[in-house]
């Protein structure tokens, strides 16, 4: 087995996370925002896996499983919300859903 600095894995996770974040911030299409959230979650999971590998412990993977579970739940609820939004507003533009304007 080869050796690999943990930082590389974390770096990858960080880059992915930031890409997801940028996308989340710049996209108005709400489906794209949902995808970005998925990317970020995935990046977070990656970080756990890397850490788990570093210490050769199962905990990192357990956390990843939890993240996956959460992501699944989130996507299902999020998609349901998107459907409702689209039915009500006839658009995917997240800025249109600004009824909560203070």
């Amino acid at each position: 087995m080869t050796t690999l600095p943990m930082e590389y894995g974390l770096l990858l996770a960080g880059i992915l996370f930031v890409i997801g974040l940028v996308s989340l911030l710049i996209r108005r299409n709400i489906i794209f925002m949902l995808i970005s959230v998925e990317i970020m979650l995935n990046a977070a999971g990656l970080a756990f896996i890397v850490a788990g590998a570093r210490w050769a412990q199962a905990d990192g993977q357990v956390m990843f499983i939890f993240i996956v579970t959460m992501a699944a739940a989130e996507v299902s609820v999020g998609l349901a919300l998107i459907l409702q939004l689209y039915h009500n507003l006839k658009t995917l533009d997240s800025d249109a859903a600004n009824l909560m304007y203070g």
Partner: protein
Amino acid sequence: MELTFFIAAAIAILATIMVVTQYNLIHALLYLVVSFLAISVVFFTLGAPFMAALEIIIYAGAIVVLIIFVIMMLNLTTEDIQHEKEWLQPRIWIGPAVLSFILLVELVYIFTIDTPANYRSTPVEAKAVGMSLFGPYVLGVQLSGMLLMAGIVGAYHLGRQKKKVIHRFLERTDA
């Protein structure tokens, strides 16, 4: 294996960038699948083959398919792609991008501040994960179960088409 890691990482980053820069949703999703696959390879190199499998099954499989179904239900047209183009102006994305870049720089700084500690990527068996999952983390499993249950109920409730009761005289003709 090192090389595998770097190639997979590069593919993951490139594919993810492509995801966020696409205008067409379906194209973006394809890149997303690629990105997930690349990450699963990374998992493999890190000695977590079970997780690599989970990644492919759940992320690349279930979740992306779910999103595609929804997109199909929404009946999107080229008009929407046009919208995307309009929405994604440089003046919109430049600010967030700069901020996020700073964040990234800081993260890199944090990761590299200490001397790198090498490690052997000893694989952690699925059995160990299972022991851990149903040992100390059993409460978490239960909670995740509940979360999923709530997710299903919530999605069902939200996704239900509510019957609109509008008096027929009041119904707009174009609606």
